[in-house]
């Protein structure tokens, strides 16, 4: 009967306990537990439930083999070694060793205790009886004065053996505690290391965030410029001509994002000699490149095809700048030419048409020295035909600015103002529209003027009036007619004589910055034509210069790039390379430079890391580069121009 009742109870009664715990099995033990629980009035606390709930998880966790300190010292051992009662043995032994001075006077205060209390300044009974106490102490029973304390006590064998055991036990305990402490120290060291790792990763993240911040700043400025422009240009149809200093993002086709980063995806190889100068109007727009084969070519970057030649210069073109459809170039024929690139295209078309039209009477003039790769009929062309039959063909070259007496090696223009630097050691300012030279700044004069000043003024560096730049770059060599400096060899071992006295120029408003062959970077005021500041630091001719609101960056043949603070004139940073630097461009986040190698050097200014662009790159040292946002164009000694996505 009991069994049937039991079976019925099993099926019929859903116990309260079962509900509380969600158990599926219900047997006698749970039934028996209920009254026990009720009797004891156990409140089911949250902790209680928490423990019960976490059991299945805990059972799942893997249990590795115990090793290290866990194997040596079990928790229980540690417990017994570290609980306060483990100290009891020591205390007991010390108490045993406490020697009683006076066995007969145990009720009274011992003399020593009294002394101690008197020393602390407390009143004791019978304090006036010092003398008596002194004599009192002498009457120690069974011990003469001078006997050691140990002699008065006999411990007994049992006590001693017990003490010995206790001491050994205590030693064990100490060993355990030492081991535990060492283990904890190791643990903490490990934690510290992992935290350090996390911290260094976070610091790198911080750098990356800073870089992005700078990029956004530039973008913001670009957007603001554009907003202003669009506000102003309500009616007119002029296109947005941002200045060269524009830093914001460029308009790039969407496919550009898909290009692999740091790879040269286009190669333009028509030139036959090392590239000497290049510039682009905009990404995927027009490219103008010049090389030592005395040709200047116009390319269409969206297709990668060569469109035209810029005909006009005799000799090699050493410097170029392209803004929109306007191009300015200077070369070894001592002239500066201004080109309209649309007209250049038209000129080329006209030439081609007339060439195709009538082979025999192709009117080619003004260009006997240009080797035209397209033509096949040399003999027919070399003969000068004096008479153009057709109407005046469109001329790409708008204007020719003459005035320099030596090679024009660097050039910069903005709106209608153009500045050129030449190997005759002068810098000239021109008006493009009129073609007139407005101002001539003589570097020689600035040099000699600076040297002739008597006393060292309050120059902060304390360096006095040593001639800036090259050591021993005396006035003599500067004054001499021809300037030449042997450039250090590049990565492939080649070197040549560097002949350009003015390596780079740039201006903004009335402030002009020039880098010259004496290694000095000069800041000029174009209103007065005076150099008001000279930045000394380079020990070889400066080949390239650029500045923005905060810094001037100059590269030179002394294998360094120096970043100067614009306000103070001090050096903010120096980047060292293995080979001479020939060209650079920078923005708030990076400095991209050609440093005598086949790879293009990119220096990240926030993380201070240097990297190189080599993939599908040049085979000989890079000479010139130009980038806009994430589109970079480079020209090298291997006569090719490559386009990169950075």
């Amino acid at each position, binding site marked *: *009967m*009991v069994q049937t*009742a*039991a079976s019925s*109870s099993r099926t019929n009664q859903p116990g309260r306990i079962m509900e509380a715990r969600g158990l599926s099995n219900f*047997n*006698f*033990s*749970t*039934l*028996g*537990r209920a*009254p*026990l629980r009720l009797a*004891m009035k*156990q409140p089911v*606390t949250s*902790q*209680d439930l*928490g*423990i*019960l709930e*976490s*059991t299945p998880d*805990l*059972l799942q*966790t*893997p*249990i*590795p*083999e*115990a*090793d*290290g*300190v*866990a*194997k040596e010292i*079990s*928790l*229980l*051992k*540690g*417990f017994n070694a*570290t*609980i*306060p*009662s483990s100290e009891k043995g020591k205390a007991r032994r010390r108490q045993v060793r406490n020697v009683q001075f006076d066995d007969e006077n145990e009720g009274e205060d011992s003399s020593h205790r009294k002394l101690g209390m008197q020393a602390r300044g407390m009143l004791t009974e019978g304090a006036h009886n010092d003398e008596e106490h002194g004599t009192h102490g002498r009457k120690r029973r069974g011990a003469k004065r001078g006997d050691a304390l140990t002699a008065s006590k006999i411990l007994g064998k049992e006590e001693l053996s017990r003490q010995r055991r206790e001491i050994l036990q205590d030693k064990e305990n100490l060993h355990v505690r030492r081991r*535990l402490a060492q283990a*904890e120290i190791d643990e*903490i060291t490990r934690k510290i290391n992992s935290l350090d790792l996390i911290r260094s990763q976070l610091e790198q993240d911080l750098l990356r965030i800073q870089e992005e911040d700078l990029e956004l700043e530039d973008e913001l400025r670009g957007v603001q410029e554009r907003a202003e422009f669009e506000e102003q240009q309500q009616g007119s149809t002029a296109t947005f001509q941002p200045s060269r200093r524009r830093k914001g993002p460029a308009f790039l086709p969407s496919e550009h994002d898909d290009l692999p980063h740091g790879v040269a995806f286009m190669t333009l190889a028509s030139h036959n000699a090392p590239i000497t100068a290049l510039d682009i109007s905009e990404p995927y727009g027009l490219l103008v490149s010049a090389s030592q084969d005395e040709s200047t070519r116009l390319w269409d970057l969206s297709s990668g095809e060569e469109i035209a030649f810029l005909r006009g210069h005799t000799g090699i073109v050493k410097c170029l700048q392209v803004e929109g459809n306007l191009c300015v170039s200077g070369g070894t024929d001592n002239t500066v030419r201004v080109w309209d690139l649309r007209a250049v295209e038209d000129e080329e078309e006209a030439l081609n048409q007339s060439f195709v039209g009538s082979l025999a009477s192709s009117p080619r003039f003004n260009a006997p020295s240009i080797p035209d790769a397209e033509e096949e009929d040399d003999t027919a062309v070399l003969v000068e035909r004096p008479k153009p039959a057709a109407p005046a063909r469109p001329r790409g070259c708008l204007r020719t600015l003459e005035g320099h007496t030596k090679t024009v090696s660097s050039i910069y223009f903005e709106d209608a103002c153009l500045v050129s630097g030449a190997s005759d050691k002068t810098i000239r300012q021109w008006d493009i529209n009129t073609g007139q030279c407005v101002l001539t700044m003589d570097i020689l004069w600035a040099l000699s003027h600076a040297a002739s000043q008597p006393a060292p003024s309050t120059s902060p560096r304390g360096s006095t009036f040593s001639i800036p730049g090259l050591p021993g770059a005396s006035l003599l060599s500067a004054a001499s007619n021809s300037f030449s400096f042997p450039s250090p060899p590049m990565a492939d071992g080649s070197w040549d004589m560097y002949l350009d006295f003015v390596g780079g120029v740039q201006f903004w408003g009335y402030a002009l910055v020039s880098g010259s062959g004496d290694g000095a970077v000069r800041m000029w005021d174009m209103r007065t034509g005076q150099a008001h500041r000279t930045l000394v630091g380079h020990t070889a001719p400066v080949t390239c210069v650029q500045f923005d609101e905060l810094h001037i960056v100059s590269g030179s043949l002394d294998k360094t790039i120096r970043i100067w603070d614009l306000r103070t004139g001090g050096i903010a940073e120096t980047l060292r390379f293995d080979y001479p630097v020939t060209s650079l461009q920078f923005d708030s986040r990076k400095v991209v430079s050609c440093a005598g190698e086949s790879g293009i050097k990119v220096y990240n200014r926030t993380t201070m890391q240097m990297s190189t662009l080599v993939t599908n790159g040049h085979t000989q040292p890079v000479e010139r580069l130009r980038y806009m946002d994430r589109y970079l164009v480079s020209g090298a000694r291997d006569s090719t121009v490559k386009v990169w996505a950075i």
Partner: protein
Amino acid sequence: MHTDLPYAADAEVSLSYDELEVLRRQFQREEEQGHVTTQTKFNYAWGLVKSPQREQQVRGVHLLQEIYRAEPSRRRECLYYLALGHYKMGNYEDAKKFNELLMEKEPANLQAQSLAALIDNGVAKEGYIGMAIAGGAAAIGTLLIAGLIRRAARRPE
């Protein structure tokens, strides 16, 4: 590896109040400093588990669970202590689960074996009580039904 474990009887012997206080203060001090060493935590947890008050046992088991989660190298010992703690609190199922896991790892462990026997005894005892209750309930039930039937049988008379 044979671990050094206390027999279940040791868990029934509780520490004095002062000793437990010292352990508690040590634990709190280390907690304030930020880093509690495993040994301190275990000392306090073991002291709590040994005490007769259920709240303290619960707290002790909670701390042992924390140790179990945090220290992989100590887990095997903690299996035993957790089993012991649950056994003392009366959670025989959990105690059994932990103990069985331990016995899988160390079949020759004497303490684990003795604890297994104790748990089985406990379960059996509860079972007897349960049976007694069920029997009592059944008896009362039959009496009631008999009474009802008798009343029903008397009525028609």
